């Protein structure tokens, strides 16, 4: 079940935590306990989905899958992303 989309080198992945406000990024990987990762995926943070950071003062506010979801810093630390093309 390999994905057909070409994925950037793993060395270019950054933590969601370090993404600045207004930027759009693509989720590459979620690290951590399986059940926790799956909940994040179920909330829309699937691999290769595009998300936008709306606010990063304190917690992170992301536009994802049609709604705004806020994540604590700890969660954002576990999500690896790359800047999206646009």
């Amino acid at each position: 079940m390999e994905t057909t989309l070409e994925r950037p080198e793993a060395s270019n992945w950054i933590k969601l935590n370090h993404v600045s406000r207004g930027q759009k990024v693509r989720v590459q990987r979620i690290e951590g306990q399986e059940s926790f990762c799956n909940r994040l995926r179920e909330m829309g943070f699937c691999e290769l989905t595009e998300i936008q950071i709306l606010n990063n003062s304190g917690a992170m506010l992301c536009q994802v899958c049609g709604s705004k979801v806020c994540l604590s810093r700890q969660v954002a630390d576990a999500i690896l992303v790359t800047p999206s093309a646009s």
Partner: protein
Amino acid sequence: MSEVSAYDSLSEGILGPSNFALVGNPNCGKTTLFNALTGLKQKVGNYPGVTVEKKQGECFLNNGQKISLLDLPGAYSLHARSPDEAVLRDVLLGRRRDTPRPEGILIVVDATNLERHLYLATQIMELGIPCILVLNMMDIVAERQMSIDQATLSSSLGGLPIIPMSAAKREGLIELKHAMARTDIPLPSSGIKLDTSIAHGLESAWHQLRETGLLHPKQNLLEPLYILSDRDPMHSGVDDRQWKSLEAASKALAEAHPGWEDRLVAKRYDTIHSVVEKVVRRQADQGPTLSDRLDGFLLHPVWGWVALVAILSVLFTLIFKIADGPMGWIETFFDTLATQVTQGMPAGDLRDLISDGVIAGVGGVVVFLPQILILFFFIGLMEDTGYMARVAFMMDRVMSRVGLNGKSFLPLLSSHACAVPGIMATRTIDHPKDRLITILVSPLAGCSARLPVYLLMIATLVPTEEIPLLTRVGFLLAMYALGIGGAFLFAWIFHRGLIKGEGAPMILELPSYKAPAWSAVLWHMWERTRLFLRRAGTVILTISIVLWAALTYPRSEQEEPAMAIEHSLAGQLGKWMEPAIEPMGFDWKIGIGLIASFAAREVFVSTMSIIYSVEDSEDLKPLRDRLRSEKRRDGSAVYTPRVCLSLMVFYVFAMQCLSTVAVVRRETNGWKWPLFQFAYMTLTALLASTLVYQIGGWLGQS
């Protein structure tokens, strides 16, 4: 329909399903729809996690058939991660003994955001129960000039009946009822296929468990995994041995097919994306919405806090500003009533009971109704506009310092109205440890029952005429801040010392802002008024009568009333405990109030009111003036500033609410935690108010 009848829970014959469950993501309008269909008034609010327990109701379809409806908590997935999501899952899988498996499901989705809401919907469609898809919030779809091709949507989902509607505007109810009366609601199909290797793996993994009777033979292949997602085996009716074999089976599967579950999630989303792409037409990007712009301001690292402080200041100022008038009217009402009784009835115990016990006791508390209503009005506004969840977002930083996360702030905020619903609301917290800590500290949030005590003390402390309003607002703010600060402090202590383990991170969806539904806010206030008056008419009335009796008997004839009280049962008790409460600056009358208010905090105010009425029935001065002129035996005033402060601080920390004890016992399944909570809060209260009084003494305060 041979497949349908394989599910034994389905009713057969000419009628359609006789009960429906309302299922959907949090905040999609399930309860609004439930209320519209049943005429009940369950709580609605614009933030995820308003409903945390199932609620049954009834409605009549167009053909006169009576069906029963079940409102359920919202969930993002059947892989439950918190107690409220587990309620939904257990009901749908027929694992709750008190509720039969529903025969029909109304899948409620927010039509403006099908991408997200169809995720849970696809899981539900696989359960083998007839479903109707309710596209709610069509008013907003129209407003945003979106369009949804319902025919294609329906055919992509196996012919699922689709009803567009707007529950808040009561549009589409008739059509929905028609659909619910259908006898031929088809079984839906999510269109999501498991890889054959996975399906085989699941099949053989569950095979054994089916034979032991743990799993129903007709169950869908994913159901055992849903059961497994609950970390508390107690609730799903699975014993330890079965739990272990479930766990082993799923682990083996995960090892054989690494990552199959993530791929399933991705597959669901892919399928949903392609459906949504086909059926939803949006206007070209219209730039930031009003919600986005509001968030830019209200969640701004600086302006956001300025806005929050401004909102709170307005609230607290209004509590003093506009409540005075109505408070005066209520006071006059009770005074007139008391005068009528004293003049109209023959002298005797009955007359005294009514005027000094009942009217003084109940009236003493009811005069604070206007302030309590203002508080509820604000809380209602915050809940209904969607601001409440924003506060949780802003507080996440602070909360993570003490080991909790922003989500725990929602129950803490609700507890400012009343700790009972606040503690219920902790069910949305997915981590058992976080949930327990939040339950333990929630009663420290300044609930509305404390308001009368604070206001009485502030009124006694600050003479209205000379000192600006700001001082009183400041005192009240300080008390609330102390409560919240205490909650943080204890959360930190418990997190550090008592309950070991990692704190859980937050994942919280923020709703779009909505204009408040005034009718809902007003209804909410009315509901609160009713509860408050009922409480005044039951608990407080009863305690008032008992108190009056305890303050009157045994009678000692010849003395004047003030002396007679000292010899009454309550007086003797107060006198007996006086040495113990002296370090806090309290006299024996306050002592009686403290004891009496262990059942409910506002009874303190009733007690004072009754004591002074029994002492001197003729005097109709407001309670605060009587308190101010109260003297100790040596002639010094009782209610000096440091006594007032010490008393308020006592009420900030003390756990004086039987309903809270009861709900904590229920939510934690035992007496251990409520007793612990009672002990730590009472001890803190005693300690803190002693400190205030003693330090006040050193500082040279009289």
